[in-house]
């Protein structure tokens, strides 16, 4: 009996070894596939992993003559400086507020848009709408910020219209609340169409027979969405949600940097814009901004793991790992 088990075990081990081919042979066999992935690996090594050594600047008193490695350790002084800086605290709060706002307000919009587009019967019209919604994605924030500023300035289109209808002028770009709303609205306008593509692709993968069957069973459009389309989308939405949470501390540098001004710093200055300003325009130095960047990454990482945990264990959906 015992021998039989041992033999089975050995046989299994041998089978496993056969399955696990040596890496060299594996690479030679699928050389073209590995060649395809090589540029991506090089890209990440050069631009993502190698620069990581600079993170130790956060723990050092940077000395230009000694370089990053040679500079003396500074006993967490950078962390004390950063955490004691009211502008950092403000930027941190803004980042969380804007990012969670994006999750709550912006994240569902592409899903709803995909569902709505899917419900359109006229194929041509659907394509027109899809193109119109997708197009702004291809315009950079540099250009868009100019357009937005022109429309919303004191003598811009919005205020002209407000006056025509007897309302007072609104300084959207210099008032904190309306500026935050503008961030969400303008980002939805720019990105919702593009983001909905992935959901539309998921919807396209649903077997049409399911809809036919549901229709025969008397299900209406809403019931079909609820019972067929949404369950098919749920997995995609969960993965995208995890990714969105992973990038939660990013907050949208391009958009904010191009749109904001000193009047709304207290509401719109996120960690990325704060890092940029502290590294290049203020007199705080690289150690300070590296520390802010490091703190941001650590918090981001924790949030990513938490989101994955919630998705896999609480909602019982498939997570990233």
């Amino acid at each position, binding site marked *: 009996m015992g021998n039989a088990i041992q033999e089975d075990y050995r046989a299994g081990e041998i089978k496993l070894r056969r399955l696990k081919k040596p890496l060299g042979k594996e690479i030679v066999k699928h050389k073209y596939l590995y060649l395809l992935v090589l540029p991506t690996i090089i890209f990440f090594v050069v631009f993502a992993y190698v620069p990581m050594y600079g993170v130790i600047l956060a723990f050092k008193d940077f000395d230009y*003559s*000694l370089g*990053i490695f040679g500079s003396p350790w500074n006993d967490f002084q950078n962390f004390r400086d950063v955490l004691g800086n009211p502008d950092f605290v403000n930027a941190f709060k803004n980042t969380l507020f804007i990012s969670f706002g994006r999750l709550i307000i912006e994240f569902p919009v592409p899903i709803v848009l995909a569902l709505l587009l899917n419900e359109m019967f006229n194929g041509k019209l659907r394509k027109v709408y899809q193109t119109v919604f997708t197009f702004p994605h291809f315009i950079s924030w540099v250009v868009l910020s100019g357009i937005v500023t022109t429309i919303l300035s004191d*003598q811009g289109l919005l205020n002209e219209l407000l006056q025509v209808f007897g309302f007072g002028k609104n*300084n959207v770009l210099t008032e904190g609340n309306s500026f935050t709303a503008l961030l969400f609205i303008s980002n939805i306008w720019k990105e919702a169409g593009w983001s909905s593509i992935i959901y539309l692709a998921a919807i396209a993968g649903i077997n049409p027979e399911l809809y036919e069957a549901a229709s025969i069973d008397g299900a209406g459009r809403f019931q079909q969405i609820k019972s067929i389309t949404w369950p098919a989308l749920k997995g995609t939405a969960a993965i995208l949600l995890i990714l969105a949470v992973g990038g939660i501390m990013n907050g949208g540098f391009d958009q904010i940097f191009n749109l904001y*001004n*000193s*009047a709304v710093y207290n509401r719109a200055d996120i960690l990325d814009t704060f890092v940029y300003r502290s590294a290049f325009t203020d007199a705080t130095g690289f150690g300070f901004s590296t520390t802010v960047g490091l703190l941001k990454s650590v918090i981001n990482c924790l949030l990513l793991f938490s989101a994955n945990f919630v998705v896999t264990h609480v909602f019982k959906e498939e997570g990233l790992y």
Partner: protein
Amino acid sequence: MNKKKKTILALAGLLVAFSILSGCSKESGNKTQVNEGAISEDTQSKQIELSVAVWDIQTGFEAPNAANDTINNNLESQLNISIKPIQITWNDWMDKIKVWAASNQLPDIFANAIATDNPGLYQTWAKQGVIKALPEDLSAYPNLQKIFSLPSVQPLKIDGKFYMIPRMTYADSSDWALDRSIRYRKDWAAEAGYTNDPSSFEEFVEMTQAVMVKHPEINGLTTNNKSYLMTQFLGSFPELSNTRSWVKEDGKWIPSYTSTKAYTGIEQLRTLYTNGILDKDFAIQKDADGVSKFLAGQSFAVYGLPLLTIDQLSQFEKANPTVSASKAIGYMNIWPAADGKRYTFVETPYWSETYFSNKLDDVKFERALKLMDYLVSDEYLVLPQNGIEGTDYKVEDGKSISLLSDDQNLGDKYPITKNFSFLGQWNNGFIYTGKKVVNSNAEMAKIEQGVIDTFNKFKKEDIPAPINFDVMLLSTPAKNKLGSLNVVDDIVNVVIGKDDPIAQWKKIVEGYNSKGLQAAINEVNEEVTKQGIQ
């Protein structure tokens, strides 16, 4: 894979990683860099390449006519050098140079503005061996020696040595007289019944409102950029027209923006904003938008249009085809401050500097200094402004007359010199000397003569804002950290705010305490006593 192979692979991986990291790290120990070149070498006999970073230098070198830039060709052959342009632009210069400094890749010579704007970084770079100290004996460079003998330059010494060459804008700090004046539409003011400069802030408001009644579609006042708003303080607390200034109150030096004397100007700015005189969009506009509005006939007055270029003139003429710019646009002599005197803006005669990488050996450094000495010489300074005498201009009855045809201009003829010449000096005061070529455009010639006349009038009638540069340029650890405050942005927020402006400003100044304001005041006062600054 067996253990041996794994170990070899891991070691190889570590070696590769170490090589990459070493490659990316800085060379250590250049703090005590040994100069390799021999001073005794005959430096003129060998052509030397000098890499130079100055604003938009690459654009000049890439211009179609670059090879025919006689001024630059003469300069390179005379000094036996070749210039290797390293591009920096007005958008990226600060960022690029900081990154180059951190990665030990600084060009041989580069422009920056840290000695005045970020004295802490200037000290750090000097002490940590990023930038090269100038020799104590500058007798071989007489033109540079002249600059370094100026009293206004002395506070830039670190432990008795200079680590940069200040890029002179003017010969004297009082020559900034027109740089924070108000340009306005004299014709519109006269139409509204105002033919003299306003004698008070209230009169300025009345005048502007009277013009706006006649031209309801215009703004009363626009600004070149937010920092030009500080012009307003010339009429109440002139020291604060320069936000880096310090004032002595109750026997103690304090930053001018913390003084209670700042309140009047802040209130006035709020009044201008709430009354609809100050452009409501000033806080969100890009630089020069306010000037464009003024030139387009969309505003009555503008903060910050010291000189008028030919392009700006044509912009004005396009928008106002029936109006003569020389007659319609005037300088407003700002109303008297609290003490009844009219003041003009004051700044150090320089606002940016030229630096040398500490990696330069003595031979290269000597040639670089010769280049700089030539760039600040009287001989060279005329060239980018007027061109070559006999070829581009001639002197008749004490006036310089252009010899260029209508389709020629100096910028196209000498494209490298156009941007490279700024490495030595801005030389903004050249026009005031009366030696500048009389513009071939009759209207422009009248405008330029008006500039010279107004400059002389302001110099004669007004007083330069009383700013103590020794205190302003003083470097102490806590004072250096105040560089991260953005006073102008905070004033802007008060101007466009809704609460009581003084209460708002007081709160902001209180907030500065948490950023080290009191420590800076203490340090500065201790240092002033120690150095015996009056």
